[in-house]
């Protein structure tokens, strides 16, 4: 049948079911992220390289125990940072700049549906990252503590961290110019990588500085994961509290100040 036949354009409007809209949007965003070379460098290659390099070579004194036992939780935190914050900020910033957010706003997909899709896409990427990094860490001799209860705590920490970093990333993407977001998101990534207890233990910093650094979301996530996976703590309340506070603050600010165009 040819599209040029009369009657083919006859209006028959209607929105697809909401779950389907969110699912196809999430699938598209995930494909776009996976297709993006710079994003993969950030989300996959850098965390994996850090894990392998710092486990194999004694670059930083990671305290007692196997280096990989210290590094694996930090690198998992870094993976969440790279996807929920840096990757999401950059991609959303450019979607805003290229009018993609504007165009999607004219489709039947509601704005909150778009945000749901973005979250789903971030979670899918994180699952892939965690699977890869856990595999590599286990191959390097990682022996995580915590057991089944620990897995629940880890899940809670990862979700809280994702919420906090997503809020910060969207706040940045929705308020700054795309180029500024690109620069700032990468800068923050490097700073938090160095100062957030990812590969360098926080107790290497002077006492006063350390107290401040512990309040960063990346420190709360890496230290929280370490408390569970290295020390076997059941539920690291303090770290969860810090992450929860960041999540509420950042998501609230993003909801208030995000500009779609």
């Amino acid at each position, binding site marked *: 049948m040819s599209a040029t036949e009369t009657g083919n354009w006859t209006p028959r*409007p209607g929105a*697809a079911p909401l779950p389907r809209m969110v699912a196809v949007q999430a699938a598209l965003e995930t494909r776009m992220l996976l297709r993006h070379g710079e994003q993969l460098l950030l989300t996959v290659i850098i965390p994996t390289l850090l894990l392998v390099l710092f486990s194999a070579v004694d670059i930083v004194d990671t305290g007692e125990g196997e280096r990989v036992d210290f590094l694996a939780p930090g690198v998992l935190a870094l993976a969440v940072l790279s996807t929920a914050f840096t990757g999401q900020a950059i991609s959303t910033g450019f979607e805003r700049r290229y*009018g993609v957010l*504007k165009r999607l706003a004219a*489709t039947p997909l509601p704005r909150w549906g778009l945000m749901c899709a973005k979250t789903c896409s971030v979670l899918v990427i994180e699952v892939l990252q965690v699977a890869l990094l856990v595999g590599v860490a286990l191959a390097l001799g990682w022996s995580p503590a915590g057991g089944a209860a620990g897995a629940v705590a880890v899940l809670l920490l990862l979700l809280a961290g994702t919420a906090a970093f997503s809020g910060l990333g969207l706040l940045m993407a929705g308020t700054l110019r795309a180029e500024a977001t690109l620069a700032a998101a990468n800068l923050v990534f490097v700073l938090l990588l160095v100062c957030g207890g990812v590969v360098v233990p926080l107790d290497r910093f002077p006492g006063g500085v350390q107290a401040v650094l512990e309040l960063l979301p990346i420190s709360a996530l890496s230290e929280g994961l370490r408390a569970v996976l290295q020390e076997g703590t059941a539920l690291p309340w303090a770290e969860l509290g810090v992450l929860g506070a960041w999540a509420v603050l950042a998501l609230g600010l993003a909801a208030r100040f995000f500009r779609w165009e």
Partner: protein
Amino acid sequence: MHATAAVEVAGLVKRYGRSTAVDGLDLTVERGSVTAVLGPNGAGKTTTVEVCEGYRRPDAGQVRVLGLDPLADAAELRPRIGVMLQSGGIYPGVRAMEMLRHIASLHAHPLDTDALAERLGLGSCGRTPYRRLSGGQQQRLSLAMAVVGRPELVFLDEPTAGLDPQARRATWELVRELRADGVTVLLTTHFMDEAEELADRVAIVDAGRVIAHDEPAALCRGNARNTLRFEGRPGLDLESLLTALPPDCKAVEPAPGSYLITGEVKPQLLATVTAWCAQNGVLPDRIAVERHTLEDVFLELTGKELRG
């Protein structure tokens, strides 16, 4: 069947900071018709359309689209409209067909995307990322996205800007087909011929207001005049010509070497002009008596050349 028009805009005002983009604009688009909003850059065309699409909140005035408020009733309205932005709106890295299929999948009864792509000449570049498409391909993809959801009302913001003549004709043909199947189309353009070819009604917009709103033929008929055009060497002394012409005639040189005389063009007037040319040693090139075009209407209404 429908009591209300597809688009009803009354007294629309939209300001950006201190500048007023739209200044008391009225516009009605009947269902099943094609309306062209015509005007120079900065006249307020895009702002008006974007208010109707629900992108911008009016500072004053009433706007109803398919009987709905574009902001308050956005969820109900969006599935029923198709939008082609003036530019952008597409991920640079997305493949052409991937994007079209995606927009289709957000609708309940979309068109067949392969047939649509074929119809718009996108069949050969379906796997090409958006950023590597030619300007014309990007425009056609954007147009395809506007119609794929089988909307009742389509907004096309400068749909043929930057297209070659062949692609423009193809776009016009599509707009005619949409209309024939009962789709309402509101398009903006700064091409007179586009408005004359396509539109049931034309709204001429200047400085944020509609200064004329009628059928193209009626706008051109307006004062039952004709136009005499000719080309000659630039900078001829039109004052001396005007003294020879009847008093209600106007003579202007809108572009160097291109002359336009409006008024009641009778055989005597043509003789007067050629005699004047002979006196001045000018061989008029491409001398033509034409019906009054929208371009002339625009010039008379605004004192400006549309594409100036």
